[in-house]
């Protein structure tokens, strides 16, 4: 298993370096390199946005905004640092902003919007993923509804996207201890909300 992990790690490092080179070319005005960067990084950006927002349509809108923002700010990209960290920072911040504004809209429109979204998600989830994964994704959306944007972003990056605590701190522009705090609180919210839905299943686990 360790050997497989080492190979994965080498592959990740090679991809990161390749992303950085593409970003430098794009920063120098190479539109072909920029297209290649968008094509390569769209799955990662869509994945994070979808998990933070819990909605495929919104995630697509955010992904488009992310790459437009990257294109506009490429001149400010400092290539001594990881392109991926910079990209994740933009994607996470825009997703959190979008989440805040959509929660405000939900407050304003209440149940109607929730029902429309649930129906849309049901359809898209069942066509794009297995029914079980779709069910878990919907469950996460439900139990994470009371998390703050930052708690949700930290949980998604750490537990679902497998990012290191140090990298998450760089992405969110905060300290590692703050990341751990957000993660701790996110887990507490999950445990509390899941206990409301499945009290028997969680009785065996830790409080």
């Amino acid at each position: 298993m360790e050997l497989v992990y080492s190979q994965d790690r080498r592959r990740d490092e090679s991809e990161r370096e390749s992303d950085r080179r593409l970003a430098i070319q794009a920063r120098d005005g190479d539109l072909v390199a920029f297209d290649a960067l968008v094509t390569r990084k769209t799955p990662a950006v869509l994945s994070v946005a979808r998990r933070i927002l819990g909605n495929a349509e919104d995630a697509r809108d955010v992904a488009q905004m992310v790459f437009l923002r990257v294109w506009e700010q490429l001149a400010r990209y400092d290539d001594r640092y990881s392109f991926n960290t910079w990209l994740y920072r933009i994607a996470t911040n825009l997703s959190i902003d979008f989440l805040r504004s959509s929660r405000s809209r939900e407050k304003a429109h209440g149940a109607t919007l929730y029902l429309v979204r649930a129906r849309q998600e049901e359809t898209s989830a069942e066509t794009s993923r297995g029914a079980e994964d779709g069910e878990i994704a919907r469950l996460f959306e439900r139990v994470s509804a009371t998390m703050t944007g930052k708690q949700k972003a930290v949980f998604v990056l750490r537990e679902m996207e497998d990012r290191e605590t140090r990298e998450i701190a760089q992405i969110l522009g905060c300290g590692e201890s703050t990341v751990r705090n957000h993660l701790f609180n996110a887990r507490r919210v999950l445990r509390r909300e899941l206990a409301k839905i499945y009290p028997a299943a969680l009785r065996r686990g830790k409080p």
Partner: protein
Amino acid sequence: MTALCPEVRDRFARYAEDRLDAAQRRDVRDHLRACRTCAEEASAADPALLFAAMPPEEVSAEEVSRVLAAVRAGMELRRAEKRLARSPRRLAALGSAAAVLALTLLLPGRLERPAGRTAVGDAAPRPATAPMPQFLPGAAPAATAERFPAEATIYDWNPGNSRDEPRVVWIVDGSLDI
């Protein structure tokens, strides 16, 4: 139940406390994705593990193409917005320059077109040599060809022929870079 199950289950508590290294965390996730029994045990021990075991989001090539197309369209829109933001200033600058030149020409007296200049554009150019008694009576000094920039083209609508219609004169200086 596989040989790995007990080892992975031993790691649940340390996973929840974030005390595993990256390789060990990855092992736990990979195992939970493959082993339903351990996944159920894990989610009872730590609900976060229920979601950590979710497979990576699948993104189709069609979705990637849609995002790329939308990004390209957005880039084009931003470029067009920038061009549009610049053009009113350019128009205003061109208008101001034309107005200043027209006043310079009209106030001293007669309007003359320098020899050898031709007008272009939709409006039919008229000879600019007619006197303008209705505007500037008296012996006003005549405008001379030297007063015009070398690249100027003059457009003159209604050069003093009718009192009912206003006279409009445009002098477009091609040497100005605006």
